[in-house]
């Protein structure tokens, strides 16, 4: 039975229309039963009595443009018919989401603002399918995402969510490291000769690190000492923690010398990383190496070297201080093993 027939034969069954206003201000008429499929529109009609005339048109959220509205209405028009089989609905939905990612994002935003959950779910799944199993570059290309993370950020997703002072210190260290790297980059770009100079200095570092066995031993010993230190720390931990709050705040205030903040970091990193080998590795190891997918292997090597270098510098600083500590005074050990550990911290203040 066509609409015309119905209108003639049973006027009381004539379809009623609702007026909707989209984000660009234009107003259109839509069959009520289709529009009512959207919970937001339904609510507006029932609780506020809007939409019955052009003057009282329901003004839709700003995410709903005329084109997205027509797509949404197509979706509603198909699904509000009760007699369709699950197979039919599924096949319609599969065809429905075949569009560009930008359109899908627009559409999901509009559907969400209208509280049309089935459509939001459908598009979310479609978008998830576009992300799943792809490399970061592919995903960036599909969704036009800017590649604006530095290599360090890609390696170290640590965030100061809980405003933990230890993390704040770490972040400051990272920022410093990033600045240094930036400096190096800038110098590279400014002068080409400088580029070569830089490379050489990195090579120097490389040979210094990997060169003689003596050197590698030098690298190792601080770590061993750190291990022993860590055991002591862990014994003291329960007691340290009680006073750790106010003490650390004190330290943050003090940012007097770099060494002090570095030194305290060491004590704290042992708590953070839970690892015996002493290297910084706060990244999440879902298959080590997978997170580096987007980086050039040569650059990745360079970054690895720099991070190692950084860690080694920290460890070596600490090792020096350890030497100082061990040689300067045995009497200090008694204050160290005291329950509040104030002795240790005062030394750095």
């Amino acid at each position, binding site marked *: 039975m066509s609409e015309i027939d119905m209108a003639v034969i049973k006027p009381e069954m004539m379809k009623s229309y609702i007026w909707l206003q989209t984000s660009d201000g234009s107003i259109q008429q839509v069959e009520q039963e289709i529009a009512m499929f959207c919970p937001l529109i339904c609510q507006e009609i029932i609780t506020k009595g809007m939409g019955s005339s052009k003057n009282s048109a329901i003004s839709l959220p700003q995410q709903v443009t005329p084109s997205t509205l027509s797509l949404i209405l197509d979706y509603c028009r198909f699904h509000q018919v009760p007699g369709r089989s699950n197979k039919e609905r599924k096949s319609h939905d599969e065809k429905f989401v075949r569009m560009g*990612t*930008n359109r899908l*994002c*627009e559409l*999901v*935003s509009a559907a*969400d603002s209208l509280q049309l959950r089935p459509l*939001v*779910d459908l598009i*979310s*799944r479609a*978008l*998830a*399918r576009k*992300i*799943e*199993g792809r490399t*970061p570059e592919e*995903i*960036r290309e599909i*969704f*036009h*995402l*800017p*590649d*604006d*993370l*530095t*290599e360090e*950020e*890609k390696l170290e*997703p*640590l*965030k100061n*969510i809980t405003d933990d002072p230890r993390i704040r210190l770490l972040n400051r260290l990272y920022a410093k490291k990033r600045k240094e790297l*930036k400096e190096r*980059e800038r110098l590279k770009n400014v002068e080409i000769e400088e580029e070569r100079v830089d490379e050489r200095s990195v090579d120097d570092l490389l040979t210094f690190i990997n060169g003689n066995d003596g050197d590698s031993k030098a690298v190792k010993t601080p770590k061993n000492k750190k291990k022993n230190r860590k055991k002591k720390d862990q014994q003291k931990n329960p007691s340290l923690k009680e006073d750790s709050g106010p003490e650390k705040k004190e330290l943050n205030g003090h940012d007097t010398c770099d060494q002090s903040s570095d030194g305290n970091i060491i004590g704290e990193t042992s708590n953070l990383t*839970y690892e015996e080998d002493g290297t910084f590795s706060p990244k*999440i*190891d*879902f*298959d080590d190496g*997978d*997170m580096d*997918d*987007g*980086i*050039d292997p040569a*650059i990745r090597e360079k970054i690895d070297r720099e991070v190692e270098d950084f860690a080694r510098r920290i460890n070596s600083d600490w090792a020096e201080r350890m030497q100082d500590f061990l040689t300067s005074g045995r009497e200090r050990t008694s204050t160290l093993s005291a329950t509040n550990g104030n002795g240790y911290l005062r030394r750095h203040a």
Partner: protein
Amino acid sequence: MRREQVQPACLSNVEPDRISCLPGHVIDQILSHLPLREAVRTSVLSSKWRYKWATLPNLVFDNQCLSVASQDHSDIKNKLLRIIDHVLLLHAGAINKFKLSHRDLIGLTDIDRWALHLTRRSIKEFVLEIWKGQRYKIPSCLFACQSLVHLELFNCWLKPPSTFQGFRNLKSLDLQHVTLAQDVFENLISSCPLLERLTLMNFDGFTHLNIDAPNLQFFDIGGKFEDIRFENTFQLSVVSIGLYLNFEINQNRLNGGSSNLLKFFVHLPHVRRLEVQSYFLKYLAIGAVPLKLPRPCVDLSYLSIRMNFNDSKEISTALCLLRSSPNLQELEVLARPEEQNVLIHPYCGEDEYCSCPIMQLRHVRIDGVSGTKPELDFISFLLLYSPVLERMTVKPIASGVTELMKELLRFRRASGRAEIIYQESL
């Protein structure tokens, strides 16, 4: 690669990045359709995406977390441990669901630590599957978690502390391969007032099931028990019970005494779907089986029973059920092959089939028959008294049972539309 400068607006070849501006809950929904590993990996996409994963409401740690299958179990264990620690630490916001189910996961004490952390994050759904090793003792902190709505445990040992007050908000409980004491079980069920779904499979430590749950709607158990009693379960609509124990019946209880069937149905007035599996029909057949239940099961529309056709008491029980279910539409009868020479109740032939009601059956399925007289009588009875039957599928236990086929062809059918499909077992 250095940090890129922000693109000036005049460069028109830059396509807009629409996905990063979607509202948080929509991004959560998109990421929740990805395995956890892929969702966390989005943190390297761009600066806006660094922490979008951290508000994921559902955390599922399963075999997909570690793609590399290593031979070294301690290596896998350590990796998994680190991953879960890191994810839980970096996660922000409420955690709705936590699922831990890795095939190499042997009960770690770290689970206690994670459980404590999760109870502080108002967790609603907790799923723990210990695939290997002995039963894992559930930490007491989990018993104090009042935000739980769904609890699912596999291969665990439940021993709540004496301060356990029940789970006020628990609606769904799924326990499989669990150990708990009798009083613990009863206390658990009765102290969860909102419980709607209960699944219990392969349990030990208790043998008497007293189910006191006023809001229970779905009940699915399979295990070894001695008796089952419902109390105050008037909302139960889907029931599936499997008794995996072929018990010896005390001869005194055989024909005299109260009927288990009657006792069973007293508290199930609104049952819609009923599955009687394994030896449960034998249990129901104990006692004096009535011809018909005092109160018909008007809502019962699906019935599946596993029956021993050589035991006439079981057939009587099945017939009693059929007589008491005026609106039954789907029936499935699975034959339980038992030693044929052990005839507890010799089959009385057509005497069983007195007072047969007209049934509303539309679809019938008979499985595992071999063409014996009791089976044929039963099938013939069904065909004669089901005027609206649309399809009957018969699957014999062995192929080439031509006698059965011949008989099926011969039977009179009350329904002109009935299709009889003989499914050859391959």
